[in-house]
């Protein structure tokens, strides 16, 4: 349903942008994607004007009013386009979803980055174990449910699945397979990627792994 003009400022390798794209797809919201050409060296005027504090993507522009920070954007989308809610109805369950959102936001991507951003064997081992500890908690909260949200794909699912294009790169440089440790979580990843809203919104993991290799070259690790 059209509720004004929607634009999304993105960068193809940003998992935080991928999350928002999944949410927009789940809500069937039409939008214009505006990709940053060179996020690292030459940010666009539109981005700098829309997010002067962090100067980062994603930024949602709803009738030219900017909203920044991916979790914040998705919460906003859920409220304005209220059909098919992504967050649970009950106040307590909502708080649980927000708790896990905060946990995922603080922990997952930095922990994954630590795995590939070093060549020191001991450091990589520590980073891998730290990442797996985080996965343990997520696997525990998923339990036997199909999705973090229960029977339906929801808020926490979207926040986590958006980060998973990077997981094969973590597995490659950490020399491990998530399914060997947490098969339920690995199954959730597969189940979620089977959704068109996810597979069409997330960047191909192979492309991301090549991006990580390029970053490693930049840091003198390759």
């Amino acid at each position, binding site marked *: 349903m059209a509720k004004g003009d929607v634009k999304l400022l993105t960068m193809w390798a940003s998992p935080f942008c991928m999350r928002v794209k999944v949410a927009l797809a789940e809500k069937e919201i039409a939008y214009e994607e505006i990709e940053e050409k060179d996020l690292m060296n030459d940010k666009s005027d539109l981005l700098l004007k829309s997010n002067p*504090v962090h100067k980062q993507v994603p930024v949602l522009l709803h009738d030219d009013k900017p909203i920044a920070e991916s979790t914040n*954007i998705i919460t*906003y989308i859920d409220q304005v386009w209220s059909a098919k809610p992504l967050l649970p109805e009950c*106040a*307590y369950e909502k708080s649980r979803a927000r708790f896990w959102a905060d946990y995922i936001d603080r922990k997952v991507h930095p922990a994954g980055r630590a795995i590939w951003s070093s060549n020191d064997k001991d450091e990589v081992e520590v980073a891998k174990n730290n990442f797996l500890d985080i996965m343990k908690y997520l696997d525990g909260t998923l339990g036997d449910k199909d999705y973090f949200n229960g029977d339906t794909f929801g808020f926490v699912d979207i926040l986590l699945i958006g980060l998973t294009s990077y997981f094969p790169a973590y597995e490659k440089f950490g020399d491990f397979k998530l399914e060997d440790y947490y098969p339920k979580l690995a199954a959730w990843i597969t189940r979620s990627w089977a959704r068109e809203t996810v597979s069409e919104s997330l960047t191909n993991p192979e492309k991301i792994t090549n991006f990580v290799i390029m970053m490693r070259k930049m840091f003198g690790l390759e």
Partner: protein
Amino acid sequence: MADEVKLYGLDGSPFVCRVKIALNLKKIDYKFVVEDLRNKSADLLKYNPVHKKIPVLLHSGKPISESLVIIEYMDDAWKGAPLLPKDPYEKAQARFWAKFVDDKCIPIVFKAIVSHGEEKDLAEAHEQLQFLENQLNEGKKFFGGDDINLVDISATFIAYWVGAAEEALGLKLVSKDKYPKLTEWCDNYINCQAVKDGLPPREILLGFFKMWFATPNSFVYNEFLNKSS
């Protein structure tokens, strides 16, 4: 009792204080359970097994942790003074600024204090504080407008803890010259009854900072940096 509210925490924690202020604003009666961070209670470990940190709010036996998550929960669960705007866009702005205070402002301000005003830390702290200063438009008593909201509450550390640390250290970070609107906001905020009733006595904070700066306590430092929010 079905509706019983308990708050697990410590007086000196600015994150616990946020929740106390929110409870006061909503006029909710609660029982305060004091935690010893070096000897965490079985209840705390049960109610916050992931982070094992304060504050934890217990409502009708159900635990909620992370201060900003707790405050959002309170706004969903209880009527009374709204802690967030109703309009979705304004709500998103409030959430953005509360997270900014949490993720950017407080850590660098704390770091600048701890490093005794090291040049690079100070410069970065001033950069972030300037964003806050700019948010207080003309005529705005609080970040929430006429009334306190989530952003004001999230910045309690700036309003109260920073002043005590500045006095203990003899360092001025948030001066009236540089931050006329922010310093006025600090005065307005800490003089609100609901806030006053939630703040620890200033002498306690002064004593803590003086002692800490004399003999830096890495336990407290790490607990704070890892954040009890």
